[in-house]
């Protein structure tokens, strides 16, 4: 049967990997659990041989598209090559077998690594201090917003509004709401950037923060960014930098120099650590000025007797257990050390080059609702294709899957109808970009909507009934 689960392959009595036998004398009596706490039978787990398990999961892996097997131009996700060197470094036993509660004196290598990374990320973003605790970008946003809330509380200011552009990532408003703020959505200007008049009309004594991505989710640089930050600051509001698009700016410009007060970075985007099918990521947060004192603790500091943990004076406290997604930090630091400043700058320049080149190849066949030079990504629309031939962005996506490419991000940002958001990254060669463009052009020019509705035809499954899944949820077996 298709897509058989590991449970359906189980045979009672079959053994996989057994733990080492205990060699201590057998206890004289069984455990004295409170009534109802001890399991009477073995837990209901599957029973398979080691080879069965290996084949099952290798088989599953073969049903995935990935950066290592396909071009994966998913906008806003920076699906660049994930260097194997990083993996080897994170797998060093001196890192993987290190207990997080080790005496810091016996973990100086790990602390030095974290300290060095904090410093480097501060330099790259123009921030004074960086915490490595947040486990993902959204976790970084939440952390930063809680820092800002604590900062305003300490000043006796009641600011309960957070402004987000209508083009923003969904995590921005969700993080603001989770941090206890009310969200106000700012309409974008006709060019897709921040509308200065709309911004000014919304600013006031209740506004805590403006959350912004730069380049914007349309892939355009927010050219008035200094004025935006000044305007917010004049009204006592802070400005937050969503680092999802930092791959456009390494060594070229720094959020701190633009006037941003806090940033998060996605090490799993900009700094080449793999996405792992949805995680783990890492979302370090940087701060400037008085906000530094409110960062979550502990941070790593350098003292006379080596590196140690320290908690800022007015810290909001912990935002997770232990110190951060350390294994991900190792990979990001390996990337930064291998590339150095010139390599990081070259990465961003070539990411911008690749996006502009691909935009040029595609802008005739698809609508380009916000024309002009892009940064590291650009957003096309299937609006005309839909009107003329009934081909939607989703159909383009499925047609690309059928042709052996991963699809771009579709239906985001929300301000673009039938959006196709394309981020090629710097690690793809020109032949790959051209082959992808060829596939996009074929879909636009040769395909019919009827044909595309059948796509993808050669993958493990065809289009799925997602409504059925939601109407009658089967979430386990």
């Amino acid at each position, binding site marked *: 049967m298709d897509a058989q689960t590991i449970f359906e392959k189980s045979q009672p009595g079959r053994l996989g990997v057994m733990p080492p036998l205990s060699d201590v004398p057998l206890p004289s009596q069984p455990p004295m659990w409170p009534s109802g706490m001890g399991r009477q039978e073995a837990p209901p787990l599957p029973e398979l041989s080691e080879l069965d398990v290996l084949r099952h999961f290798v088989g599953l892996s073969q049903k995935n598209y990935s950066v290592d097997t396909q071009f994966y131009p998913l906008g806003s996700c920076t699906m660049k090559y994930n260097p194997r060197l990083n993996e080897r470094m994170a797998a060093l036993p001196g890192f993987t077998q290190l207990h997080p509660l080790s005496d810091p004196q016996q973990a100086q290598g790990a602390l030095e690594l974290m300290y060095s990374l904090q410093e480097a990320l501060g330099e790259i973003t123009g921030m004074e201090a960086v915490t490595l605790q947040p486990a993902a970008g959204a976790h970084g946003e939440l952390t930063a917003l809680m820092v800002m809330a604590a900062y305003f509380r300490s000043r006796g200011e009641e600011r309960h509004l957070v402004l987000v552009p209508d083009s923003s990532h969904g995590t921005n408003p969700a993080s603001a709401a989770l941090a206890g703020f009310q969200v106000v959505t700012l309409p974008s200007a006709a060019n897709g950037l921040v509308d200065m008049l709309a911004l000014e009309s919304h600013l006031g004594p209740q506004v805590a923060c403006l959350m912004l991505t730069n380049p914007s989710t349309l892939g355009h640089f927010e050219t008035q960014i200094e004025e935006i930050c000044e305007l917010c600051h004049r009204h006592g509001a802070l400005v937050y930098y969503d680092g999802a698009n930092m791959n456009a700016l390494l060594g070229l410009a720094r959020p701190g120099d633009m006037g941003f007060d806090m940033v998060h970075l996605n090490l799993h985007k900009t700094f080449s650590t793999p*996405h792992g099918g949805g995680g783990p990521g890492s979302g370090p947060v940087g701060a400037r000025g008085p906000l530094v004192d409110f960062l979550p603790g502990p941070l790593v500091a350098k003292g006379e007797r080596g590196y140690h943990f320290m908690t800022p004076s007015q810290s909001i406290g912990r935002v997770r257990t232990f110190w951060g997604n350390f294994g991900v930090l190792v990979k990001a630091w390996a990337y930064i050390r291998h590339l150095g400043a010139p390599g*990081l700058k070259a990465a961003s320049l070539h990411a911008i080059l690749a996006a502009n080149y691909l935009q040029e190849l595609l802008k005739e066949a698809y609508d380009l609702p916000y024309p002009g*030079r892009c*940064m590291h990504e650009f957003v096309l629309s299937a609006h005309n294709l839909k009107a003329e031939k009934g081909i939607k962005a989703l159909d383009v996506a499925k047609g690309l899957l059928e042709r052996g490419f991963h699809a771009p991000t579709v239906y985001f940002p929300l301000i673009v109808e039938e959006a196709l958001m394309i981020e090629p990254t710097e690690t793809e060669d020109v032949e790959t970009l051209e082959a992808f463009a060829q596939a996009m052009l074929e879909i636009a020019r040769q395909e019919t909507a009827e044909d595309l509705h059948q796509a993808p035809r050669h993958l*493990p499954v065809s289009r799925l009934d997602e409504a059925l899944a939601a109407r009658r949820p089967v979430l386990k077996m």
Partner: protein
Amino acid sequence: MAYLPHTPADRQRMLERIGLSSLEELTEIIPSQLRLKRPLDLPPALSAYEVERYFEGLAQRNATFSQGHFLGAGAYRHYIPAVVDTICQRSEFLTAYTPYQPEASQGTLQAIFEFQSLICRLTGLEVANASVYDGGTAVVDGVLVACAQTRRSRVLVSKAVNPQTRQLLKTYAANGAFSLQELDYSPQTGQTLLDGRLDPQVAVVVLQIPNFLGIVEDGPDLVERIHEAGALALVAIPDLHTLGLLEGPGSYGADLACGEAQGAGNPLSFGGPYVGFLACTSKLMRRIPGRLVGLTEDSQGRRGYCLTLQTREQHIRRDKATSNICSNQALCALATTVYLSLLGAQGLRAAAKYAWQNTTYLRSLIAQLPGYTLPLSGPYCQELVVQVPAGQALNLNHFLACEGIQGGYPLGEDYPELSDCILFCCTELTRKAEIEELVTALRSFKEAY
């Protein structure tokens, strides 16, 4: 430059096509005063070989104590079979994104579905999500679900819950998410005391089993009393492994089981990446955060998997979402899925039993050791609180380190009343000889001071 495929000719061709003659012109969109006019101040680039040498040097400055390791306290050392690494290093799992295009992501989707199923089977609950950041954030997420469901905002947490998890709850409480009060534990048994603390404002009571002091709480009794007050019961699970021996919280009526699955397939790795899980009753299904994978059919009637109930999530609902979570810990959840499949019913039960046997042996030796006592009488699982000679907890750990032994977790900072106590952990990996060496070292230490 490393990882860049462009030849000078490629670059030329690409630039010409967009009407430019140099890379630097690409940055002209950035206002001149914002363009960084100097190189980033970073350490010089290293060759791949030099990177390896440098990282090996850093790694060597960490002491990992592979022979004699008695530290747990929220992060646990278990055996990770080679197949776990093989699968997690598969390109197609490692370098894929969140499965937003289901036809090209069936591998990831089915693996998540199996993770959800395994967590449900072990916790005895009906719904589990695709993972959250770690065991601590899982508890916060569970508390937020409980507050939303009960429309109450008072949270009781046992002092016997991991201190870092309690710190995390305090961060959220200080930000106004809920009010937080702590429950004492019995100084005799180490079990949580609930008497007189429940009232109709309490949304949820947070317990941990086994608790931070290594003691197994009386789950059925506590959950019954919590439900009588109309509150929800959340059981935090510090090490999924213990469910090889202990009943899942769902079986004794808990509404939420939130915990850490690191011990099942993920290395210590200095605290992360780990994998939080959140399981609950089906009644709470539409309130939980994070991704859920469901079973469905494709257009030809074949079985397939897709993300579902996404109207809870940030990319659809924005500020009305149940949570802001986007990236989770998918690859770590995959490690746990492979791990639990490899150990299976018999393997996990054996591992948990051996850990308890090894702990029992350590306990029996310490019970006879002059100068050391076992202050808590409650039933234990794989960790033990040991009272050491007065004022010597930190010195003892230094002494053990010099003997090549990773000692336990000194409790004084988190529990002033246990200032002379250390929490020791044994797992299935702990050998009899290691236990005896530890006890010998404890005896020498007592004699030396």
